[in-house]
């Protein structure tokens, strides 16, 4: 007893399918924004607090000997600088490994005059005057270039933020499309159930009573369809994470495409949001339509 006033529409499957697909795309966009956010954090954490000094190979004389002396000078300056916690000159093998993704493993690498790289970590909480350090290095070793990675960090952060905002834009577009679809379906539902609406109206039902019958109807169906779409997207993210865990190599320079458990929970925002959109849209559509009835 006390059954739902609005019957289940027989032709509702296409709407449910469309909602599920939109929720799937929304969950993908949301997941991608989470991955971009995590990547930006990782890049920031990985590079912040680190500086690199690059000593270009000399063009004249005994390049190897000069480069070695310049490296020792740079190491000395860095070690004597307050706030520098660790200093390390990269070995030839480490430097070759760095350029291997671009130049491969052939003889070309060993024939090229590679610059000497010196890594240094800034102690947490220390305030190193990088401009003054750069000037001191330049004066002592004109071929030395100090890189505090701020340029890279900034660009990576901008890239990640661009990606995140694009994902949010996609989410907004999907939300608007979903609202339009539910509005259209509600109006079609009002037409289909015109006699029932007229009867309830005639029996003295307030607009809110009739609207509730529609809004809960579309809320439930949208919630279920969107949950299915979001669950499918979550499954894909879990498969992506599983592939990585199984040792399948990720695309170079891209962050891992899997989502952590707490990030997967964020995907539940999609069906909840979709349900809320359906609820509000259906209510507004019904109330607007009822205003045209005496």
């Amino acid at each position, binding site marked *: *007893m006390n*059954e739902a*006033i609005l*019957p289940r529409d027989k032709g509702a499957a296409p709407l449910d399918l469309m909602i599920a697909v939109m929720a799937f795309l929304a969950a993908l966009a949301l997941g991608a924004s989470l991955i971009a956010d995590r990547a930006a954090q990782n890049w920031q954490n990985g590079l912040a607090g680190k500086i690199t000094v690059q000593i270009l190979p000399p063009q004249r004389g005994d390049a190897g000997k000069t480069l070695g002396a310049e490296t020792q000078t740079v190491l000395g300056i860095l070690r004597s600088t307050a706030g520098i916690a660790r200093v390390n000159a990269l070995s030839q093998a480490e430097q070759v490994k760095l350029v291997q993704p671009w130049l491969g493993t052939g003889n070309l690498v060993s024939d090229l005059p590679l610059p000497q790289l010196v890594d240094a970590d800034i102690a947490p909480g220390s305030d190193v005057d990088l401009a003054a350090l750069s000037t001191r290095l330049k004066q002592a070793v004109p071929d030395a270039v100090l890189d505090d990675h701020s340029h890279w960090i900034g660009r990576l952060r901008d890239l990640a933020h661009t990606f995140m905002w694009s994902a949010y834009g996609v989410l907004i577009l999907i939300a608007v499309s979903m609202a339009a679809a539910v509005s259209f379906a509600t109006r079609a539902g009002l037409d289909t159930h015109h006699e029932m609406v007229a*009867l*309830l*109206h005639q029996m*003295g039902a*307030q607009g809110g009573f009739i609207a509730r019958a529609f809004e809960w109807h579309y809320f439930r169906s949208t919630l279920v369809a969107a949950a299915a779409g979001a669950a499918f997207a979550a499954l894909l993210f879990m498969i992506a994470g599983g592939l990585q865990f199984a040792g399948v190599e990720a695309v170079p320079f891209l962050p891992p495409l899997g989502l952590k458990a707490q990030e997967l929970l964020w995907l539940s925002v999609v069906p909840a949001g979709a349900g809320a959109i359906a609820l509000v849209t259906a209510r507004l559509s019904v109330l607007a339509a009822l205003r045209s009835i*005496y």
Partner: protein
Amino acid sequence: MVRFENVGMRYGAGPEVLRDVTFVLEAGSFTFLTGLSGAGKTTLLKLITVAERPSRGLITLFGHDLATVRRKTLPALRRRVGVVFQDFRLLDHLSAFDNVALPLRIAGGQPADYALDVDELLSWVGLGDRLGAKPPTLSGGEQQRVAIARAVVAKPDLLIADEPTGNVDAEIGARLIRLFAELNRLGTTVVIATHDRSLMENTRSREMRLVDGRLVELRVRT
């Protein structure tokens, strides 16, 4: 309770289907609205039940001038009117119980509060064993009795019935009229549109007759 003054009604640009209709329904009265098909009975009932606006004239319902009453007051006025539609207008996906309970749900009632009343009423109209039946599985007469139970379940101040006994046998018809009379005795104002003059026998009532959209005859049976 209901007052019509020089009321006229036309649909769109068509001819007037009601012309200069003037009458008063006193509280507690029992009225038969008669007339041939097309005389305007259903339109007159639609105006009384606030389903349509008149093209001209003044209608007062429960002391409210319908031309000036605020829109948000209309649902409350409609809830005071029980209507038995000629075509029943039952919701096919709801059980007989839920169809009858609909006015109580609309009024904000809870199933626990009205379940017994609905059961009793359906038993009274002979459908005590068909509570869970959906209208498509009911005969025409059974559907009509569900429609009547739905109209009276909320104990309306005004009961409007459009050909309420058209699909039931004489015995059930007489029983339904007794139900209307009983409601009338308890204070409900009753208006029944019919062309079955036998219904008027043995009922203390007033007759309003419509001919070509005009109210031409007023008669009291005692």
